[in-house]
């Protein structure tokens, strides 16, 4: 069946590749809509100097970062470094940002970032923050959207693979962090063969609406399955979190076979309001756990790590009426709640059908105790008692569903490589379009909230093959933008994406663009090594450490000649960008630095560590083309042999004094 589907869906797709740009609709079979290339081009064309309608934030997957794009143009604006070091601007290399990557495993300068989540108020994207998970070393990060910088990272203890994360509740009360790999809780030395006895999953509820104070409110210890994706209830189902599980077989080896035996796995429905009440009633325990919480101080812009020592834990048994299992075929990936909060669509990644559960039926079934036994004390609801029906999709491998504002759902199908549009009220398929190729997640801007925009659906494809000019064995990742304003989906644009976007969020630009910070006020800079003018610069020695307090302004550093450094010294460059102007960062590069370069935003102080390796003269220079005399923005460092009597001093030619006075203002 699969092969006939592939033939049916993919061969027209391949034909469309050949004809791409001529007449997509002719090749797209049932997607035919008469859309010409120039129609499509007009829809995605953003004239020079004009703005995109939306921002899209795409996870970088294995690059550990977040990419910022415009929609509908697909233009990439920025990479926001989150979990990975970023030598381009010194994130994770500068002394101020290094603590962001501290974990209980030490400094982990990379991760695998999957699922961004925009903060919400009353079920709508509010544009304050973006959360994203570190899948590898379990972490959740918060990005401030006025600066598009990572402000906070919280490690999740007792997790192993923070995949089902960070799905957010409708008022940003919590983001959820569920473990992909079950492990012993607490982690300890046990035989792997004792998986069923000793391994557990956990679902953490992380307080999300208290910037700088993300914390685990409580951690629900679950049966030893693999937990996948999640989605919060909304409207009537607010207070519930739904998450998929697979490997309910509890296999610990060759999961591709051994975890694919059960006909149905589970969607877990967790009533977090009941869990809150149970915690308040003292039914949870404080359990020792070591994990890091890294935050940026807004006055100094320096990150600090705090080590947490306990976590609040409870099990479903400690809090009856909090957790239920909804049987769902088969190894489900996504679970998505429609904008009304009533319908819960799950995607069994090996299934052909899309089961749709009803929230109100689920509540009735719980009240009627319409159970089909229990697993580890968790009642399993009867499949039929919660099910509204199954979408006879005609595709294979549904992964993820999002919704528009007109009562339609869009489900991605990895195996049959397509998007299927279906009507939520009738479960009938109304349209389908191929994706090139093997779509993973999809995105309808606002499609996970109570207020979808209903303008576009974006396919985040896993395989690119022949869609672009080849770039050797490693190809770009690819997104595709479809118009969904009419009855038929229309492919408008392919655009390459960096890293591997697993999931993305998009928001109307109007909710963010006017709140963008243009520079940091020098007067508010409380960095301990700030130089607010060239008169405040200086060079000092503390034993083997030399502190250089420098300023950067168009087009020079002050001081720019530094002597008296000796081999064996560690040199700390504390550079303050004196500019109070929009889009004038300065950079710092030092010859042979084993560390990185820096980008210093206007009004900001950043510190770069440099350990010279040889005696001699070292140039340093601005790496961000700042002005007509950027190429002149340089300095020299003199490194003398140990014990030499060259006095430590930093100098700047007198001719620069005019500029110094200017800088003071």
């Amino acid at each position, binding site marked *: 069946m699969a092969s006939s589907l592939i033939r049916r869906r993919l061969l027209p797709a391949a034909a469309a590749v050949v004809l791409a740009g001529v007449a997509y609709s002719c090749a797209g079979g049932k997607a035919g809509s008469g859309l010409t290339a120039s129609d499509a081009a007009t829809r995605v064309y953003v004239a020079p100097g004009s703005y995109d309608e939306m921002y899209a934030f795409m996870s970088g997957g294995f690059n550990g970062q977040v990419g910022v794009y415009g929609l509908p143009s697909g233009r990439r604006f920025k990479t926001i470094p989150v979990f990975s070091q970023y030598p381009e601007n010194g994130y994770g290399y500068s002394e101020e940002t290094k603590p962001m990557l501290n974990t209980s495993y030490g400094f982990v300068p990379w991760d695998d970032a999957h699922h961004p989540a925009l903060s919400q108020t009353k079920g709508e994207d509010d544009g304050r923050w973006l959360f994203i998970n570190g899948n590898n070393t379990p972490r959740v990060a918060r990005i401030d959207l006025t600066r598009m910088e990572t402000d906070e990272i919280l490690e999740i203890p007792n997790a192993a693979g923070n995949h089902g994360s960070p799905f957010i509740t409708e008022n940003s009360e919590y983001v959820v962090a569920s473990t992909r790999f079950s492990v012993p809780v607490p982690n300890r030395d046990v035989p792997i063969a004792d998986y069923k006895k000793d391994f557990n999953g956990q679902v953490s509820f992380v307080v999300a609406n208290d910037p700088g104070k993300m914390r685990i409110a409580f951690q629900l210890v679950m049966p030893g399955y693999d937990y996948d994706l999640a989605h919060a209830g909304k409207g009537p189902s607010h207070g519930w979190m739904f998450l998929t599980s697979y490997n309910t077989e509890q296999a610990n080896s060759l999961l591709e076979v051994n975890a694919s035996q059960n006909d149905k796995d589970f969607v877990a429905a967790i009533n977090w309001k009941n869990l809150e009440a149970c915690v308040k009633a003292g039914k949870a325990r404080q359990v020792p756990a070591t994990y890091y919480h890294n935050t940026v101080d807004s006055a100094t812009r320096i990150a600090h790590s705090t080590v947490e020592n306990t976590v609040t834990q409870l099990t479903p048994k400690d809090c009856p009426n909090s957790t239920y299992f909804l049987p769902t075929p088969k190894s489900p990936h996504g679970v998505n709640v429609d904008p009304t909060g009533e319908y819960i669509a799950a995607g069994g990644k090996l299934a052909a059908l899309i089961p749709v559960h009803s929230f109100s039926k689920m509540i009735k079934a719980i009240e009627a105790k319409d159970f089909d036994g229990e697993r580890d004390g968790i009642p399993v609801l009867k499949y039929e008692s919660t099910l509204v029906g199954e979408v006879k999709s005609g595709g294979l491998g549904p992964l993820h569903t999002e919704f528009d504002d007109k009562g339609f759902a869009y489900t991605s199908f990895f195996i049959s490589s397509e998007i299927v549009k279906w009507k939520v009220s009738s479960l009938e398929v109304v349209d389908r379009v191929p994706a090139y190729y093997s779509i993973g997640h999809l995105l309808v801007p606002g499609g996970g909230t109570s207020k979808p925009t209903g303008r576009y659906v974006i396919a985040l494809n896993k395989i690119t093959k022949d869609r672009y000019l080849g770039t050797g064995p490693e190809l770009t990742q690819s997104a595709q933008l479809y118009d969904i304003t009419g009855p038929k989906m229309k492919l408008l644009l392919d655009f390459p994406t960096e890293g591997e976007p697993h999931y993305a969020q998009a928001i109307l630009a109007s909710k963010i663009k006017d709140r963008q910070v243009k*520079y940091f*006020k020098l007067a508010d800079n409380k960095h301990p090594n700030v130089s607010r003018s060239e008169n405040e610069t200086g060079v000092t020695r503390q034993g083997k450490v030399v502190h250089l307090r420098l300023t950067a*302004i*168009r087009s020079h550093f002050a001081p720019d000649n530094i002597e008296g450094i000796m081999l064996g010294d560690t040199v700390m460059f504390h550079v303050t960008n004196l*500019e*109070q*102007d*929009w889009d004038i960062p300065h950079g710092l590069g030092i010859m042979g630095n084993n560390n990185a370069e820096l980008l210093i935003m206007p009004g900001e102080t950043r510190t770069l560590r440099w350990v010279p390796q040889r005696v001699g003269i070292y140039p340093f220079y601005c790496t961000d083309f700042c002005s*007509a*005399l950027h190429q002149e923005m340089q300095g020299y460092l003199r490194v003398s042999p140990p014990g030499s009597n060259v006095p430590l001093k930093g100098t700047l030619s007198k*001719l620069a004094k*005019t*500029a110094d*006075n*200017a*800088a003071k*203002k």
Partner: protein
Amino acid sequence: MSRRARVFLAVASLLVGVSVLLPLWRIDLIAPQYPEGLGLLISSHKIDGLKEGDLGSINNLNHYIGMAVIEPDEIPELRFMRPVFIVLAVGGLGIAALGRRLPAMLWMGAFAVVMLGGLADMYRWGYDYGHNLDPHAIIQVPGMSYQPPLIGSKQLLNFRATSWPASGGWLLALAGGLATAAIFFPGRTRQGSGAPAGHAVHVPPAAA
């Protein structure tokens, strides 16, 4: 003085008083790299950037052409202009209350001297900044000076400088018009309030 003339003089004095709270002049600078513009607001007692940071940015850019740093603390006029305006305002109100024509004419003369003197002084500072350039300046264009116009627009290298009265400047112009009307068109008895502003807008700003 007629009632109308006294009212006009009193209002003119109040406008002078209010103008110390407002910027008198505004200079806008637009360049390809500055589509959002930079600007200065000149008040009777201070010079501000149009946006926070603009004054610093303008000074920093000016170092390329060797222009002296605009240092409001070092411009003595900014210390005494405001008291002068306040004296004018209080004096004008007193004269309006007194209702005698000769003091009113003297006030008008003083007002004109302050206004013209202020404009001349601003021109002088502009000339000084625009012409007395550091001989070591980074960018030296033979024959080029960088004096912004007093009123109007001028291209200075990559910047288009546009100079124009700001809200306080317009109030002073209006005050000048009202004072002129009070003295030269005092009216007799109960004439309607008329449209004094109609006179004012015809007064060339330079004469204000």
